[in-house]
């Protein structure tokens, strides 16, 4: 039995400890916002926060997150109460197919938490692990930088909703 915190709630699973966190969250806890894209940590669609840091969960055994604090896109914001990054994503019509966007937003939230005033190159460095096959990169960067300009505290925003 492995216990961890998922979007502020304590959860327990008896899934095999080698099961990647992504599948435990999707199949056992039924949170479907985090996506499967490659199964090899190459595309970022599965990105969640582990103790506040963006992490690839399609290759991370659930045993590695025992006792840790996991935030998924569902914990970051909801349609009625969106995180500022999500609001920027909507405002700028960032998504096309939308499949990668949970991972993109989780990576962006982690970036802004660590670096509230990123340069364009900082955004490239932090976001280049996330593939968008529709090619929304120009807008993703614009959205991240527009939120950074507002100078909000992402750490606080995330903690409140988690």
């Amino acid at each position, binding site marked *: 039995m492995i216990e961890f915190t998922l979007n502020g709630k304590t959860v327990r699973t008896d899934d095999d400890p080698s099961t990647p966190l992504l599948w435990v969250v999707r199949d056992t806890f039924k949170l479907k916002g985090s996506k499967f894209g490659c199964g*090899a940590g190459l595309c970022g669609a599965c990105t969640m926060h582990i103790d506040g840091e963006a992490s690839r969960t399609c290759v991370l055994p659930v045993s590695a997150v025992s006792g840790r604090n996991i935030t998924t896109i569902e914990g970051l914001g*909801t*349609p009625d109460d969106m995180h500022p990054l999500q609001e920027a*994503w909507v405002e700028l019509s960032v998504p096309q197919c939308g499949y990668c966007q949970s991972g993109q937003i989780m990576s962006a939230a982690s970036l802004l938490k660590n670096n509230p005033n990123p340069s364009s190159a900082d955004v490239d460095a932090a976001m280049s692990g996330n593939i*968008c096959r529709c090619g929304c990169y120009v807008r993703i960067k614009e959205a991240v930088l527009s939120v950074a300009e507002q100078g909000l505290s992402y750490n606080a925003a995330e903690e409140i909703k988690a």
Partner: protein
Amino acid sequence: MNAKNMSRRKFLQTTSVVGGGLIVGFSMTGCSTAKLPIEQSDYGFVPNAFLQITPDNIVRFYCPRDEMGQGVTTGLGTLIGEELDVHPKDMDISFAGVHSDYKNPEFGVQGTGGSSSLRAHYIQLRQVGANTRALLVDAATKDLGVSAAEVSTEDGHIVVAGKRYPYGQFVGTAATLTAPEQAPLKPNADFRYIGTKFPRVDAIAKSTGTAEFGIDIDIPGMHHAVVRRSPVAGAKLKSVDKSVAQNMPGVTDVIEISSGVAVVAEKYWQAHMAAAKLAPIWEDVALAKVDTETVRQDYADAMKNEDGVSDTDEGDVEAGFESADHIVESEYWAPYLAHAPLETMNAVVRIENGKADVWSGTQGIVAAQGLVSRFSGIPVENVRAHNTYLGGAFGRRGTLTHIIEATEAAVASKKPIHLLWSREDDIRNGVYRPASLMKIKAGVNDDGSITAWHAKRVGGNITPKTLENMMPALFPGLGDGTIDFMVGLSRDVFAGWVVDHTSVEGLYEDYDTANKSVDHVTVEHDVPLTFWRSVGHSYTSLAKEGMVDELAEKVGMDPVEFRVRNTQNNPRLNNVIKVAQQRMQQMQPAEGRYLGFAAHNSFSTDVAEIAEVSVEGNKIKVHKVTCVVDCGIAVNPDVVHAQMEGAVMYGLTAALYGDLNLEQGAIKQSNFHDYPILRMDEAPEVEVIIIDSGTEPTGVGEPGLPPVAPAVASAVFKATGQRLRSLPLVVA
């Protein structure tokens, strides 16, 4: 039954089922006797309708096309909302189920592709909106005792003397009236939503993880299936020792299915781990002897030794060459490519009490229904197909073998099945953009006129394989033998008699010359082929635009000016080139950066692109792409902008990285480490200039792609003097 009675019948029937509300069907199929989905199912409510308006004023739009990122819910919602006077953001938009009313007017089947949705539905959905609005106005005059002249409409409300009444207030009366067939459409000058920018209607769902994709479907009792398939396409299973997988935790079934071996388990990861333990042995097929080098050699031999089949022959090409001051001849290569949508193929199939449900994000939900019917033996009227959001498609989600697999697994295991492909499955077991060898020979005079143009393409055709995949889906009752016969016939026809036009489209059309010919030689290696974003144009543009650059160089003309001179017969393309030329003249690239230019017409849309490129060592860096597009009226200019951005990135991935190779018949690449996709640090700035137009919309999903590779190649030539004629582009 006349049309009038028919529409009345539909209104009354559907109204009684939903318990109030107005359903608008408008007999798109005339007086078809096809049963309505609502009569076929006891699963709930599936109206034969585009619109439903409830008494509490919810305006529901059943979107007939599939949303794969192209913004179709926003675009089609705008068409119907414009005439109905309801903002698309205020509509409740659902994906339509299967019914003949939802056919793509351009294809005649319920499918999405070919950059067709706005083009095909532009008048139809506006007419539905206008007719519905007229009906509501008619009802309001009766309920309020006013004349039509006193009534206007605004934001889902009837307005009389400054007072607003929600549409929902009038649906009861409206359901007793007869809707007009041809209510007048607004003139362009009155458009409120068409032509304006507003956020996509699906942006909130797609930014909060709440948009439901096929992979997200989760139903009670559902088990998960993973399939082991032959690494070489078409090889059948010879034998497998199932016991190693059978005894793994969570595994309930190990089943032989038509594509290989399916492992069914309680959870996905259990199925994945167990499937990895299997060591199936596959039958030998001819493809297993084929490497990419074999393909290239076979194509080169065919190019040299075979005349092929004529697709186009205009004027007197030989005379044109004889009169030319110069003749230029070059060969171009494009490899096989995978689509690699980020959501891998998946489907959920449930079979219960002689009925079936299928959930999957597809480019043709009717085909999902047909395949489940065919492979379960359940009549189509008892198969309910549910579309979801598509996590990318690009042509890939027109081929639905994963639905066959899920159906076979559900039948054999007697469990609801969620079947998912891995990324490796996606890259290695897919259907591909065909490889192509192209040759163009052109004559040019010193004054810059093209005297003759001969193009020849060698490669496989997409139509026979597409028929092979689509016919069992669209005609579930047709026997295998008949389908095999028809597919075989199409293969023979395209190999020896007529050209599959998708194989050569874009090779010759755009530039002026009286003397043109196109020949095609079919060489197949049994690699499964299909549509890939912009189809034939995705490879022919490099050859056609590359040759135009070479002709301009030959006669010492500026390549853009050469294009202006030679597009007099294509005024819209000519204008796009001229607008891009003006933009290019304003650009002052930094030292070490070069501007390349290309233009191309596809899907009735004209696009010119300017690529700003530097080459350091042998690395090509694309800094900026400017895209000038004439797609008729831009229904939502921001969506057009986004599609151009996306097509540039998709095209750049192909131009810089895209290469899929065969090794003993198997695809060598497997995941994003060896089949790379452009990432943010490589992504250029994209500038989009949309030509102001009031004409009917043409395609936007694909036409931004074809000019990308030739524009970059053109810039690389300026930077290095090297003409790159092979994809992906590699500097020596």
